[in-house]
């Protein structure tokens, strides 16, 4: 069995070497060329089976791999004096904007997001964020979130918002893997979406070592991080509590920064595993949408049997006061205590991770 696994791994490595010929790359690029999920799947099947098709796995898509554009081959919207068209023929998508007299068009090179989707365009060596995006709730195009304040005065301005270098790195850094190295955007080594290597740094070395039977270089187990640390880890893309404070994001706009909202909850405890990101979410699978599926997570603290499991017992040694049980219900906790909040200008709702007793008429906290 062991021989089978090792030979399978060897095949995958050989195959990936053909796909990603490291020999010809400079040393730095070799080090950062990523490991395909298929290589990891030999040992980590449960984690890799669904992950490539999750929203994180498809956080960035290349031309020809975008089901949303294939399903919506012609998207049009009029905004002010301009008309936008996003047209897909075969594997090619073209983003155009016209003022009626003149039209400019660019190929869509990178699609960001799977539900709502924004496109990144390249013009004269500079990268631009499309000024319109696709929103599933409207079934079409509207102004890209955050760009509502822009009133384009020319066709060129209407096309998109020029991205500063830091923004570009942030976009690709989170939506792709191996896209930023040594503070530079390295699109030549970029792999679309969040792959294994994105979170589990060092998978390539681990893969090569494991072929020799050496498993000591396995990346650290992220599941063992404390709630505080995992919040900061996930927050590298979903925004950490402190980065939101520094960024002065006030009001409903910060509802999409879940680590920030969670840490503002009264019940957040950086050492209690029952309140970590991973207590409720498995990033290797699609997010679970049924409210009731989270009840057990809430009741782990707020139920009469809250102190039954060993993990809970160790946590309760730190926080001996038993949290109150809900006097209203024992099911669908999140439907009341984690309400859905509309993102201003975003045509989407996010679950507010600031867990609290929500009273009718209460303002959105912070």
């Amino acid at each position, binding site marked *: 069995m062991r021989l089978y696994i090792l030979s399978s791994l060897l095949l995958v490595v050989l195959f990936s070497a053909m796909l990603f010929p490291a020999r010809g790359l400079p040393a730095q690029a070799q080090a950062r060329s990523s490991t395909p999920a298929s290589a990891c799947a030999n040992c980590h099947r449960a984690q890799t089976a669904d992950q490539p098709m999750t929203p994180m796995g498809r956080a960035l898509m290349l031309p020809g791999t975008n089901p949303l554009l294939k399903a919506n081959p012609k998207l049009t919207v009029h905004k002010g004096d301009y008309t936008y068209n996003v047209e897909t023929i075969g594997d090619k998508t073209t983003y155009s904007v016209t003022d009626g007299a003149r039209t400019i068009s660019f190929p869509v090179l990178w699609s960001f997001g799977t539900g709502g989707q924004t496109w990144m365009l390249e013009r004269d060596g500079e990268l631009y964020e499309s000024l319109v995006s696709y929103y599933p709730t409207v079934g079409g195009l509207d102004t890209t979130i955050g760009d509502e304040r822009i009133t384009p005065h020319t066709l060129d301005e209407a096309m998109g918002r020029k991205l*500063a*270098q*830091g923004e570009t790195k942030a976009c690709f850094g989170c939506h792709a893997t191996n896209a930023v190295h040594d*503070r530079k955007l390295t699109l030549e080594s970029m792999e679309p979406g969040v792959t294994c290597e994105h979170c589990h740094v060092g998978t390539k070395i681990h893969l090569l070592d494991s072929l020799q039977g050496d498993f000591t270089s396995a990346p650290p187990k992220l599941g063992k991080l*404390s709630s*505080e*640390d995992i919040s*900061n880890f996930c927050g*590298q893309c979903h925004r950490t*509590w*402190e980065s939101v*404070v*520094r960024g*002065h994001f006030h009001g409903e706009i910060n509802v999409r920064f879940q680590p920030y909202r969670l*840490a*503002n909850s*009264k019940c*957040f*405890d*950086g*050492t209690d595993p029952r309140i970590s990101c991973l207590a409720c979410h498995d990033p290797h699978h699609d997010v679970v949408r049924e409210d009731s599926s989270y009840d057990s997570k809430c009741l782990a603290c707020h139920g009469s049997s809250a102190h039954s499991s060993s993990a809970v017992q160790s946590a309760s040694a*730190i*926080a001996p006061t038993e949290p109150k049980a809900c006097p209203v219900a024992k099911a669908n906790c999140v439907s009341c205590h984690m309400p859905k909040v509309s993102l201003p200008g975003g045509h989407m709702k996010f679950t507010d991770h600031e867990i609290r007793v929500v009273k009718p008429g209460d303002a959105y906290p*912070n």
Partner: protein
Amino acid sequence: MAFLFMFGLAVLLSSPARAAQDNPTKFDDVVLRAAAARDQNDVPQAIELYRQAVELKPDWPDGWWFLGSLQYSIDAYAPARDALTHYLELTPDAGPAAALRGLCEFEIGEYSQSLKDVQRGLSLGAGNQSRNEKILRYHEALLLTRTGNFEGALQKYALFAQDKVPNPELLVAVGLAGLRTPLMPKELKADQQELYAAVGKAALRYLAGDRDGAQQEFQQLFQRYPAQANLHYLYGYLLFPTDPDQGTVEFKKELDVAPANAAAQMMVAWDALIRNAPAEALAYAQKAMAEEPTMPIAQLVLGRALLDTGDAKGGTELLEKELQHDPDNLETHIALAKAYSKTGRKEDARRERMRCLELEKNENAVVHP
């Protein structure tokens, strides 16, 4: 004098001298004569009469105010400071008086106390008129520079960036803060004025939003003064809030010019912390602390680096010390929130987070730890 006039008006309106007209006593008589002398611009006589009035009635606050402000107007700064001290003992929350006493202390070289008074005056509303605010902020920036808080001074000088024709002293003053030189403009040697004014001009240009123009000026300065300490640091500091990568490139260039520059080491460490590279941060923070242990924020950055590299106890100790030194530093509260959260001090962590949210609302931008 405009500064004095605006502050004085509010006090005049409530002066008891008017009430005294109906029931003259010796005190009231002196007060009336003092007011008349002041109206006639006979400052020495007015000072003498107000001095007599407060001798007769030491708990008359307005007398101390007039005495102090008139003494300030004839450059008698030490007696003015003393008179205003009496006034503030009777009226502790008088922002204009605190600010004016700060300006007196500034003139007699009591810089540390002056800074406290100017800042207290500002916090109590002494800068609620644009002209007064500029006068006080300028002095505050000079004092911050003189007392070694150069980054704080540069933030204050941003208020002057849009001035059409900045005066030469302002350029030198900004240059002093930029090149981390704890002097007043008048204390700078004549042969250094040109360099500091040029640096101040480039920095103000950046602060005014003309980044391309500022870049050109800085490049010229780098060519002309390749060994000048703190020049790359200044440019890096200006760049850092919007382009931390390029800012850090400049900090590292600064370390090529001046390897022992603790401020540059600290900023490289800070950048590494923000990028979640705590081991790199720790190495730079330790070097900075060794070079300049009394530097503001040194404990914050080292404390945070220790915390992020796993030494929660050592990090928390340093951060708590730093908090005693600078209780309103947002970054220290952020770091402490993290420290307490990591060590299971849930309530303390929550308290620090809530404090951060209060502090953050009062800050426009966080540009420096």
